């Protein structure tokens, strides 16, 4: 740990010094942050460590502005509790600006939709869910190497995206606090299950294509979008099922169409938001009680169904508190009881945030509540600006329930502190 922190600090200092030297040249700008994030589990009886996280991150962004083009690069160096250093590129792209069109080429995060904290039409950039949905959203979203063209026509924008190589979501590793177990018959010992991942071949026909038309005006904003893509989350296809000796599951990514839209408008100080998407041909896993019968009839434990995901949200300010609430529902069309997911899955989110002391102190509450399983994630935090660019956040993430998307992590309740220096 000591070695990795030292290395991180040296790297940060060298990169900062380099950045400062280079930034002396006209047109190049550098900014970024150094952050420590330490989380402590409230109950470690299920784990060998008291810590849910010990992370040190150095993030550096570089921008160069030319006459008709910009370059942007963002990289990070990260050390974790296992004394491992990870370095990566979050984004690396260039922009070319024309009178009515912009072209962005390279690794980039592309964000769609009006929902907060949930992904409905936001399907272009995959997600890093290795730490569930707890990191900041710019760290959850992964850049994809792509070509994006935006054409501007008055208040309308037409956007086209070509992603030549598919990038899936990052899912938690098996030994992670956030590992997700597949719903298998109780007769199957999880230790004998072998997973393999089958990514689409990197051939031209496996490209993804997306299109969007958006409007921003006085009365309302809206987006209409569609995509021919791969599902960023895999489904588990059973290839071998011989318990108790052998069970093999192949994680595959389904090719599908998505069409959707979103809007936001303000009425009497209330901002109304809505977003919905129709997914054609999403693959779902079957429940454990139906798996054997499906395999005997030549199936692989999966079924393809169309699926709708939508959200209605409301934002307002009351007594200086910014309040936001969302109702989100997922609906599997032509539902069959053998599907492991519920036909309807409903979630609500609540946000209340207020700043004090001339914005140096922010108290925030954010909660997800799953209506199907009465489970929840409650996030409370207090952030204080010690000085310009130096911020301390102390908070807690509490999981409530025994099952469901949030309840499955009931043992992961934690308190944490984050210290971040932005430059």
């Amino acid at each position, binding site marked *: 740990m000591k070695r990795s922190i030292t290395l991180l600090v040296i790297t940060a200092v060298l990169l900062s010094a380099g950045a400062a030297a280079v930034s002396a040249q006209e047109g190049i700008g550098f*900014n970024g*942050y150094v952050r420590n994030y330490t989380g402590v589990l409230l109950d470690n009886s299920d784990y060998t460590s008291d810590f849910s996280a010990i992370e040190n991150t150095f993030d550096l962004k570089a921008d160069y*502005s030319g006459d008709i083009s910009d370059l942007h690069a963002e990289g990070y160096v990260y050390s974790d509790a296992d004394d491992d250093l990870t370095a990566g590129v979050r984004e690396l792209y260039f922009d070319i*600006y024309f009178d009515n069109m*912009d072209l962005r080429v390279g690794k980039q*995060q592309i*964000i*769609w*939709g*009006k929902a907060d904290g949930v992904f409905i039409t936001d399907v272009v950039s995959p997600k890093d869910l290795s730490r569930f949905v707890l990191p*900041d*959203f*710019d760290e959850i*979203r992964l850049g994809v190497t792509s070509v994006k063209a*935006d054409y*501007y026509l008055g*208040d309308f*924008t037409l956007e086209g995206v070509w992603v030549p190589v598919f990038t899936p979501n990052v899912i938690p590793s098996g030994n992670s606090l956030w590992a997700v177990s597949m719903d298998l018959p109780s007769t199957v010992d999880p230790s004998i299950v072998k997973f393999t991942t089958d990514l689409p071949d990197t051939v031209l026909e496996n490209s993804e294509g997306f299109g969007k038309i*958006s409007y*921003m005006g*006085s009365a309302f*904003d809206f987006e209409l979008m569609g995509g021919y893509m791969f599902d960023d989350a895999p489904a588990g296809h059973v290839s071998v099922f011989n318990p108790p000796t052998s069970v093999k599951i192949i994680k595959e990514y389904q090719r599908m169409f998505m069409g959707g839209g979103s809007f*936001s*408008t*303000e009425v*009497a*100080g*209330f*901002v109304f*938001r809505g977003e919905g998407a129709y997914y054609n041909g999403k693959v779902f896993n079957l429940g454990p009680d139906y798996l054997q019968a499906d395999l005997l009839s030549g199936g692989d434990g999966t079924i393809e169904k169309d699926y709708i995901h939508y959200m209605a949200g409301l*934002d*307002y*300010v009351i007594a*200086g508190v*910014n309040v936001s609430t969302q109702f989100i529902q997922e609906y599997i069309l032509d539902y069959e009881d053998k599907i492991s997911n519920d036909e309807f899955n409903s979630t609500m989110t609540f946000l209340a945030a207020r*700043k004090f002391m*001339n*914005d*140096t102190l922010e108290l925030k509450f954010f909660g997800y509540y799953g209506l199907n399983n009465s489970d929840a994630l409650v996030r409370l935090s207090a952030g204080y600006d010690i*000085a*310009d*660019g130096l*911020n301390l956040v102390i908070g807690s993430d509490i999981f409530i329930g025994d099952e469901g998307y949030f309840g499955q992590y009931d043992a992961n309740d934690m308190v944490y502190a984050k210290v*971040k220096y*932005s*430059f």
Partner: protein
Amino acid sequence: MKKNSIAVLTAGLLLLTVFAAGAQTMTGLDVMNNVYNRPKGPDITSELTMTLTNSRGSTRVRTIRQFVKEYGADEKKIMFFTAPADVKNTSFMDWSYGAPGKEDDMWIYLPALKKVKRISSENKSDYFMGSDFTYDDLGERKPDKDTHRIIGEEKVNGSDCYVVESVPKDPDYIYSRTVSWIVKGSWIGAKKEFYDEDGELLKTLTINESDKVNGYWVVLDMEMENVQKDHKTRLQLKNVKIGEGIKDSFFTERQMKKGVR
């Protein structure tokens, strides 16, 4: 000759009478309408520096590049935050309308979220970037939102001013009343006091410097002090340019995301 003198005297008396009548009929609403409708130029760009000083004397500095364009009674404004580092590349856009009752449209672009988000115009009562100015204080509050009356006339820094008391029609507004010193003729503010919900003095705004840029009056240096919290914000404008011809396409989502070079 006598006839001519009488004619001049009569004309002079007539003019004085008209002027006096005009002065007598000047109301608080007239004064604030004159302030609101004061010619500001077709567009204005400027660099803002906000220096926040707390009761212990420590300071924080925010810098912003601001672009404003007039569309008759309507106005479009876009702000790009350039410092401190943790808010750099954030942008804020406000379309305000002269039509009574039509609320502003406001959007914010947060680079971490990488999307432009419509926000409630109720945020106009919020303090701007931790300063002592609310969004409303920085913008042009529509005169029809308050009831105005002239409560006196005073000299401030050698300028003759109307003293106008304004009481919000909305009883839940953050101020119970404000008192403005408005310079006669130029219709620019000289100072202002803000009173809290209990009627106690909350803030004082002092104008340190105003000047004409391209023939239009602009406040270049002002300071808002929260007397209850002993916290103050100095707001200085530099590189002010008026009538440079900002394109309509500047006040768009594209520009909010792209930022300013």
